[in-house]
């Protein structure tokens, strides 16, 4: 009879965490921040059709980094959760906090019980009635939830980006200022990013019921090009 090898639980968890972190670190970073009229999410993403940032519900946006198929599965599940909840109860009863919690439950479950953890980090953002009451929930591959204030960075090289962005951040800045700072923080001192390398979306007041809006390439070009002059 063959005996299974004993592996210490600490070792198992550490290996899984390393595995997930490596997968996530390979991808480009993504940044979420508040500005005077809403929430801005800015990602480095050369694809125009495989989105990292998406709409979940009227005031809720989703952004993910890491393995595309894995965070996209989470995104679709989030849309399903929100739409069924809003249909069964009321549109007002759909909130980011409960969605962040069920994401955390699921990621935690996968991390401890499945062979392979999910190589993703996600952001669930909700636009508050007042912009200052907006929420940014940053959820890690193991189900850890961090309720971030003002801004957060996900993905590869996150600490360096966070350091650069922290120096630039100001409360109640305009969308244009926030985009410029985000792009410069994502790019770093040695690279330049053009509009084509970016995916930018906002949850903005004044967009009606559905507050999610993508910032078009034309608008983006204007903002990003001015910066270089």
């Amino acid at each position, binding site marked *: 009879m063959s005996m299974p090898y004993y592996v210490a639980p600490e070792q198992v968890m550490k290996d899984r965490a390393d595995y997930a972190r490596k997968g996530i670190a390979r991808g480009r970073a993504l940044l979420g921040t508040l500005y005077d009229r809403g929430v801005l999410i800015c990602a480095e993403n050369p694809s125009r059709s495989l989105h990292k940032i998406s709409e979940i519900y009227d005031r809720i946006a989703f952004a993910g980094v890491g393995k595309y198929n894995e965070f996209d599965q989470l995104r679709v*599940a989030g849309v399903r959760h929100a739409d069924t909840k809003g249909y069964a109860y009321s549109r007002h009863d759909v909130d980011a906090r409960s969605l962040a919690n069920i994401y955390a439950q699921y990621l935690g479950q996968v991390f401890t019980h499945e062979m392979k953890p999910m190589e993703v980090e996600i952001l669930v953002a909700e636009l508050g009635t007042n912009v200052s009451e907006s929420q940014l929930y940053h959820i890690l591959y193991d189900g850890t939830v961090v309720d971030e204030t003002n801004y957060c960075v996900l993905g590869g090289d996150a600490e360096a980006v966070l350091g650069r962005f922290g120096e630039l951040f100001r409360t109640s800045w305009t969308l244009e200022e926030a985009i410029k700072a985000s792009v410069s923080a994502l790019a770093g001192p040695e690279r330049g990013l053009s509009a084509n390398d970016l995916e930018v979306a906002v949850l903005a007041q004044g967009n009606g019921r559905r507050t999610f809006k993508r910032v078009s390439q034309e608008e983006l070009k204007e903002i990003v090009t001015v910066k270089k002059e």
Partner: protein
Amino acid sequence: MNLPIFEVNEDPGPNFFKLLGSLDHGEPSFLKASQSLGHGLEAVQANEIPHGTTIVAVRFDGGVLIAGDRRATAGNIIADRRIEKVYPADRFSAVGFAGSAGPAMEMVKLFQVQLEHYEKVEGVTLSLEGKANQLAQMIRANLPMAMQGLVVVPLFVGWDKESLKGRIFNYDVTGGRYEEVDYYAIGSGGREAQAYVKFAYRSQLSKQDVIRLALRSLFEAAQEDSATGGPDFMRGVYPIVATVDENGYERASEVQIAEISKEVVDEVAQGGPRQ
């Protein structure tokens, strides 16, 4: 609630009705309700349930209009004077209904969620044709209830981004879908409303003119049909008028409708038929 994640071969895709079916933990499912509610309905008289009535749709230069009166009746009783029977289906389409108000409102709500759900899951909006077909499927699913007397008949209009024009779709109770050319009206006052539109319609009407035309047609319907409500100046209740054009759905303001309704009534009083 837990996260709705499915096995690859059981995934409902962007279909919200199918999603409700697969979740199966107590959410009200339109399709299920229609199957279970159908029997035993004989006990409830159809005339005890509120019915909505006249809806009219007319194409104009650069868009399409849909309008409905505000009355719901249960037999000979006025069940509601302020019911709303015209809704946006999504940003570029609108739906109005005649028939049993309860199932109709549920159907509209489900239709709205279905379109938005598809758009979010897939990342693109359905074509107008696709939206019209979705609605046809919902009507067909309602057939058992329609056989019991809970008939829902919608009128669907939208802006077609491919052909760049407004389009009107009319349905029968079995889910048959018929595209109309320039105008159509449904409900108990539909014949009267359509007769007026047929008489006064000109191609390439302006938005302003088509709003007036629609209000007059509803007024004429209300003159002849007791289940259709006219403009109610005493309570300040006026028909709902919405337009869909290249900028999307827009509901005409109550102030504007009140004003035009007043003009329509004055016009009739001054020289129109008084029979």
